[in-house]
């Protein structure tokens, strides 16, 4: 077996990552969001330039400057979103953009396509429009195209996200067939069972660093999860979580029954009490963000009942939620959180201003006062309160958004990945702040891919897997081990 090895230390997104792919091997690449998987792939396929390191193919160093170049050298990529044209036929999608012949020979193309579809067992006709094929079939056609281009390395980025069980099996059959032909496959996925079913080796990335490369058969699931979610050592011994006072347990601050949303959230129940910090644990794709978004009505709510302090209320838009004292710090800071061209001050007073209404604008002095107050309280590093928020670092931007919510009369704050992409110091500050707020009587939900952060701050953890709640842990059961087990098996250890 000839080794195809790629090793490169690199960019801030990737820090000294080594990666090795062998011929005829199915190699799973795993890690949470922001771990560096897509960056690694983009460096391999020439979309990004690496800063440092060496990539070799069959022992020879290579440097691709574009996806086309990578393709021409035998690396085929099938992305999570189908990169095909739905209005063209199946055959066209397989062959377009590959030859320079000025005239299209339909007969020949259709015949070649039919042969290829047959050899790979894909249930489609060369002359049907791609949009009439199911997503699974479309994905297989994308793979067929890559295969037909004589790729020796096939990269599959989350190919199974939209497939049902039968379709996944069909895909795996195809992958095994390719493997038998000596094609090396990089398989990116967050579905643990699939990894164990089909892959030979696993590489785990976390925070841009290589955690390790393992043989699938020798790595128990529990260990895999711990490697993906485990932490680095930090001096955080001073943090002691806040256990909710028994007297506060009574009528919950917020209660949802059968809440479902258009973002694929199946009906679920959720309760939180005063001074309680709860967390949602689970891997990427488990549905944590979608669930809390449903609570905030950030996505369209399709069913369920919501009660605040025992009283039935209507929360169908974020404004309703805000008016009832619920705040939401979104996972996507840039896309959903900051208003990048506006000043730090405007970003801070935004939600409070919305609560006050259209006809009661804050004067500049009032706004300044609020801004200064929170810049000091949260230790936000900014030249002035008038600086546009986009010039601040990620951690400080996050603090501004926190300030925005704390300024309003919050009873319940939802934090979705508040520590992602932030420096260690600010991470600790945020965790300490969460505990302080809870002690003051606020209810909080804290979601993080770093389980230890949640363990440090939460008194209760809800574990999710594949868009369902599989269990809840509290008190003495709240250990890292128990969480991992619950994720792995959907039950306590």
């Amino acid at each position, binding site marked *: 077996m000839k080794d195809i090895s790629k090793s490169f230390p690199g960019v801030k997104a990737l820090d000294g990552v080594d990666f090795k792919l062998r011929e005829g091997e199915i190699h799973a690449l795993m890690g949470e969001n922001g771990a560096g998987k897509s960056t690694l792939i983009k460096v391999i396929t020439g979309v990004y330039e690496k800063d440092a390191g060496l990539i070799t193919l069959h022992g020879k160093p290579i440097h691709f400057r574009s996806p086309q170049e990578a393709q021409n050298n035998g690396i085929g990529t099938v992305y999570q979103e189908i990169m095909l044209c739905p*209005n063209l036929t199946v055959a066209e999608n397989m062959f*377009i953009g590959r030859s320079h012949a*000025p*005239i299209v020979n339909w007969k020949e193309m259709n015949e070649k396509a039919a042969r290829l*579809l*047959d050899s790979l067992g*894909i249930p489609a006709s060369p002359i049907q*429009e791609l949009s009439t094929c199911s997503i699974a079939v479309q994905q297989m056609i994308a793979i067929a195209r890559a295969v037909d281009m004589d790729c020796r390395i096939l990269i599959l980025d989350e190919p199974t996200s939209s497939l049902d069980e039968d379709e996944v099996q069909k895909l795996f059959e195809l992958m095994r067939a390719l493997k038998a032909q000596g094609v090396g496959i990089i398989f990116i996925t967050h579905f643990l069972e699939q990894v164990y079913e089909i892959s030979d080796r696993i590489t785990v990335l976390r925070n841009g660093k290589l955690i390790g490369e393992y043989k699938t058969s020798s790595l128990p699931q529990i260990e895999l999860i711990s490697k993906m979610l485990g932490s680095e050592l930090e001096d955080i011994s001073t943090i002691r979580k806040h256990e909710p006072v028994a007297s506060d347990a009574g009528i919950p601050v917020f209660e949802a029954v059968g809440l479902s949303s258009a973002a694929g959230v199946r009906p679920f129940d959720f309760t939180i009490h005063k001074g309680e910090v709860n967390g949602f644990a689970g891997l990427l794709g488990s549905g944590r963000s979608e669930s809390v978004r449903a609570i905030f009505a950030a996505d369209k709510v399709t069913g369920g009942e919501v009660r605040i302090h025992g009283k039935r209320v209507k929360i169908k838009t974020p404004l309703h939620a805000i008016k009832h004292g619920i705040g939401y710090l979104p996972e996507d800071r840039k896309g959903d959180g900051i208003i990048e061209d506006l000043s730090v001050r405007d970003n801070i007073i935004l939600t409070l201003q919305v609560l006050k209404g259209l006809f009661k604008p804050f004067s500049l002095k009032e706004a300044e006062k609020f801004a200064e107050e929170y810049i000091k309280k949260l230790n936000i590093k900014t030249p002035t309160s008038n600086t546009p928020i986009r010039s601040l670092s990620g951690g400080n931007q996050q603090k501004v958004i926190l300030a925005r919510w704390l300024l309003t009369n919050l009873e319940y704050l939802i934090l979705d990945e508040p520590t992602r992409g932030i420096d260690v110091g600010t991470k600790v500050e945020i965790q300490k702040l969460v505990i302080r707020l809870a002690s003051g009587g606020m209810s909080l939900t804290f979601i993080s891919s770093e389980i230890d952060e949640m363990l440090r701050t939460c008194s209760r953890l809800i574990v999710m897997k594949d868009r369902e709640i599989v269990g809840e842990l509290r008190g003495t059961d709240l250990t890292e081990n128990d969480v991992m087990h619950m994720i792995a098996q959907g039950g306590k250890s």
Partner: protein
Amino acid sequence: MASEKAIKQKARLSNSNLLFLIASVIFVLMYLFAIISYPGSFLQFQTFFDLFNLNAPLIIMTFGLCIVMIGGGIDISIGSVCGLVTMACAVYLEKRSGSIAGAIFLSMGIGIVFGILHGYLIAYLEIQPFIITLSGLFLAQGLLTTLHKDPLNVTMPAFVNLRDFNIVITWLGTRNRLGVFIPCQIKPGTIIVAVLLVIFASLMKWSRFGRNVYAVGGNSHSAMMLGINVKRTKFITYVISGLTAGIAGFVYIMTTGAGNIGNAAGAEMKAIASAIMGGTLLNGGVGNLLGAPIGTLTLLVINELIRAAGVQSNFQAIVSGLLLYLFIILQSIIMSLRDRKRFTVALPPWLRLSGKGQA
């Protein structure tokens, strides 16, 4: 076998062809309705040929516009460019004593220059096509008025001959009121339409470029990942659109014999309507060049019917606009019923609000 299961789907028409079929059916229906309502005029063959003879420029412009729209773009400068070309030819032939061949080259040249300008700014600098071609529209209008404000009749003998030239079909014709048999006449413009139809339809169906245009219109990001040079493809579509506007300009003056600042004003709206009625979807990736003349003719027949029914000229534009929007919605209904998706009005990338985040 896998492909046998798929044979069941073999019979299904592609979206482009289906819309073309619908367009043709509607055209035939409309024409039949016209014949029944106004047999005096519509039953004559000459009327049918006149639709081509008098509206050849519009059909030619629609060809180029179809290609741009299939690629996902839009060009609203074509009417003004056409008008500019007519005046430029008039000035060239009358004031500068140019040759007819020169006028032809001039027309195509002006059209291509506009096409290159638009194409570069839209495809390579990624500026919104609507505002660029709108500026092109004003640029052309401005140049047109600057060139020559008053109508200019071309009296050059060679040109006049060309203008009056008719191809006579002796075996097809009608009897006029006096009982004299008048054979049908076809103007050279119609021949050009037929030739361009063959060229462009083949181009879109059988050339690599044509298929690339469909791909770019279907999903430009995927097209890029599939190895298609999206920018170059888009660029060429705008050059073609400019070229057809130029050719249309020459045919226009060849038919009317005079340059006039009102020439082809508002033609772009008619061309867009024709393209849509002919089965080219507003959001790109779907369309059939054969549908372009069908759509134009349908539009013209409907306008004729409206006019013959006594509706005033102001209303005509409003009614045409309304019909156009009805057509868009009809198309969207058909498309969504097909795919059993939720009903959405199919809007192209240049129509939708762009940028990060949607409300």
